[in-house]
């Protein structure tokens, strides 16, 4: 009896010390034509991307951090070079894994949309990142989740949950998905 009470106490203690994880919410961008789910607070940022074929590009980043995992949806407008779609996508995938240890590199396959999913270990024990890359409607859309060393659970299912949540069919988005803001140019 005393043992059972002790066990219950241990379970309660473990629950209180576990990091509070935020609820997952659905997000959608009707103008950009994609939806996904992520935990934590949304921040909209601008970034840059450069590739030998793509040249220098501005990026639109939807970023979340929860439980020391960084979630990013990155949109790169390539509409002026969309005829090079296959090479531009290949270049973005290649750049993501260049000089890093690749753990997985399978097809990324949504409904009628082929891309690539890659999981890598970052150099200098800076964490593990999982990403999916797609080219659709003249844009490279990638979802990247990075487990930071402060989290340390490199096999967490949260990375896969984020990366696999992407859909390019708005009918598949959650009914209460939040519309993503598109910053003015």
């Amino acid at each position: 009896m005393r043992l059972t009470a002790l066990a219950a106490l241990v379970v309660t203690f473990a629950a209180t010390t576990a990091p509070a994880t935020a609820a997952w919410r659905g997000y959608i961008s009707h103008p950009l034509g994609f939806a996904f789910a992520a935990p934590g607070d949304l921040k909209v940022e601008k970034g840059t991307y450069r590739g030998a074929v793509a040249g220098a590009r501005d990026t639109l980043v939807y970023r979340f951090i929860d439980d020391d995992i960084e979630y990013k949806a990155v949109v790169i407008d390539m509409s002026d070079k969309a005829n090079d779609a296959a090479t531009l996508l290949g270049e973005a995938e290649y750049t993501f894994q260049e000089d890093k240890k690749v753990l997985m590199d399978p097809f990324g396959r949504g409904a009628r949309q082929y891309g690539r999913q890659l999981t890598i270990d970052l150099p200098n024990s800076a964490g593990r990142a999982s990403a999916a890359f797609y080219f659709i409607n003249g844009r490279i859309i990638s979802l990247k989740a990075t487990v930071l060393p402060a989290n340390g659970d490199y096999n967490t299912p949260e990375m896969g949950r984020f990366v696999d949540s992407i859909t390019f069919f708005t009918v598949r988005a959650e009914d209460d998905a939040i519309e993503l803001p598109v910053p003015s140019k």
Partner: protein
Amino acid sequence: MRRWVLAALAGSALTMAAMPAQAAWKSYINRELGFSFMAPGEVKTSVGTYRGNIAGPRQTIVYRSVEDNIEYKVMVMSFIQAQAEGANILGEREYMFQDGKKVLVDTFARVEPGKDSVYGRKIVVDLPDKKGRSTGAFYFTKGKLISLEATVLPANGDFASPDPGRFIDSVAFVLSRTEPGAVELKTPKLE
């Protein structure tokens, strides 16, 4: 001593005679379609078909040779009106190549340096029912899906042969890289 020399000479001669005669590798170029490659044997031109959920039904231009029980095949499909869908069409083609097969290698492929780079994929699969091993390279450039496939047939049996790699890696899209004197390939008329 003389017997040893004689035996060595006879052994070498026998080995040479038993080895299959290897055809010379030649360079081939199609300026209209914008690529070149190298292959052994006699390259024949034909027209085939392909169907994908995304690509739809397509006619294909095929350049094929067989040498020492290895089949070398270059397949070209035109998607001039769907170039912006190139990444998706290429992904489907790569997926279909390995679907239901044992994948041994699946890695990035890149032809040409810097801003002229064309990114694709190299995949090696074992065919079902021990029908051989296929090495494929897939690219989508200038509105065309271009694939190179080399299949080592069971009659050859040397599944680690370097020849499929030599074939796959010989592709060029910047035609100034093609060696002079390459055989000009004709483009068959499609319906």
